């Protein structure tokens, strides 16, 4: 088995030595996803440049993450996947690419791969909207889903935290 405990060797490698980790000064786009109450928060920064053909590419990318081993590893691997890609290519990176690049994730941790893909989407959206660019239809739809899920989680945990607080007061 190519595993260390719960995780694949690849996950552990990224966890031990995360790639492109840290804060970026003056990023062109930031994607902030996750919720501290659930225990995973991912911030992804991108710097956009142009390649030789004049196409816009992700020239630099960095992340900061609070979360479990899977959250850190998916953050790290998505920066590898996105770096140097054109905006169009980067938008096509999805959760399956993330999971595949890590050699798999435990089923209970699959949501971390969604989080990483969402962070990239959000960062690109942030860049495009700041620069008053047209937002592709697909990206608009993905964003709607992300926003909806964000609200659901906030709603769900608001209720849950209230219950806990009330229990504590009793």
């Amino acid at each position: 088995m190519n595993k260390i405990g719960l995780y694949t060797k690849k996950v552990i490698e990224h966890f031990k030595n995360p790639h492109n980790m840290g804060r970026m000064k003056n990023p062109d786009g930031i994607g902030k996803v996750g919720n501290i109450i659930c225990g995973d928060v991912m911030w992804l920064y991108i710097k956009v440049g142009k390649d030789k053909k004049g196409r816009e590419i992700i020239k630099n990318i960095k992340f900061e993450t609070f979360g479990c081993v899977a959250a850190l590893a998916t953050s790290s691997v998505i920066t590898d996947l996105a770096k140097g890609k054109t905006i169009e290519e980067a938008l096509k990176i999805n959760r399956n690419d993330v999971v595949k690049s890590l050699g798999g994730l435990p089923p209970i941790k699959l949501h971390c791969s969604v989080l990483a893909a969402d962070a990239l989407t959000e960062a690109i959206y942030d860049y495009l909207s700041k620069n008053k660019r047209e937002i592709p239809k697909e990206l608009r739809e993905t964003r709607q889903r992300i926003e909806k899920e964000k609200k659901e989680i906030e709603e769900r945990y608001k209720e849950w935290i209230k219950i806990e607080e009330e229990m504590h007061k009793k």
Partner: protein
Amino acid sequence: MKKRIYLDYAATTPVDPKVKKAMLPYLSQKFGNTMSLHSFGQEARETLEESRKTVADLIKAKAKEIIFTSSATESNNLALKGIALANREKSRHIIISPIEHPCIMESAKFLETQGFEITRLKVDKYGLVDPGDVKKAINPIRKSSISNGARKNTILVSIMHANNEIGTIEPIEEIGKIIKESNIQHPESRIYFHTDAAQSFGKIPIDVNKMNIDLLSASSHKLYGPKGAACLFIREGVKITPILHGGGHEGGLRSSTVNVPAIVGFAEAARICEREMRREAEKLTKLRDKLIKGVLEKIDGSHLNGHPKKRLPNNANFWFEFVEGESMVIQLDLLGVASSTGSACSSAKLEPSHVLLAIGLKPQEAHGSLRLTLGRWTKESEIRYLLKVLPEVIKKLRKISPFKKHE
């Protein structure tokens, strides 16, 4: 060989070599079934009764007040459901704390679906139950509104002796006294007192008579005995309804062929604890306090969970700002240290520990929790190593976290 340090003794313990030695003859030579009439069976039966006596001695109980089970979970299930079912026609109110082990929490929840009413007391920021709250919550004479005429007066109070996560030791003797007083005042409405002693049994003194305990659960694998053996103390005269029906083992309260080798191991483990408890508690308390002091001094934004003094000699539990527990546990594991966390990410339910939430931690704080539990073979050098690597682990994870303090 890579350094491996085990600081998760509250999860389980290795079998003491002396325990293993005591068990071995009962695997292949003295293998008889305690219910058999022949000499093989009688030999096993005799050993079983000796073991019962040894385990009973550790908590000042009588041998006949001990029944053996397979796990503390089973003992706790039997205590709650056994008392509830045996008394359901007269009383249907049960009181527990909010920081009980899941096997109590879930058994209580199940009983709720069966027409019982559960009161979950609150605890303070250290995880302590206020005996005054027990006094207020017990109700020996309440009439019920439920249709079949059963009364909703209190039948059982179940409060753990020491918490498995934060190590806080509950005021069991005071609670026992309150229940005893109620029982004297209202002899027609007897309230039973159960305590889950899985974490305290063999580690700190227990006297079921002094503490007025009616039922007590304990498990072998937490005290250097094998897994698969545990016990339930049931005070003489207390009636419970069995859950496992069958051949009538353990006085008809727990049918199942008796696991003699594991029980022999349990008894030997209890014997060693009785002999070593004082010395071991002293040694571990010293190491624990050194660990707690070291962590709080060396790491900014670190907080102790549980009571500073009223805690198990072997338990330390912290929460660290801006870091997540599972990441800490795995990072420490890669450095050779075994630990545990109450973070949601490490649980099957993806929810943070109910114990940490009950003592007032916010979910994001509970995510940053780390439990380190020491044991018989913990060395000072291991604590020193932990104190060297843990600050580095926290520093590294904080560097990745977006919530670090920025200059």
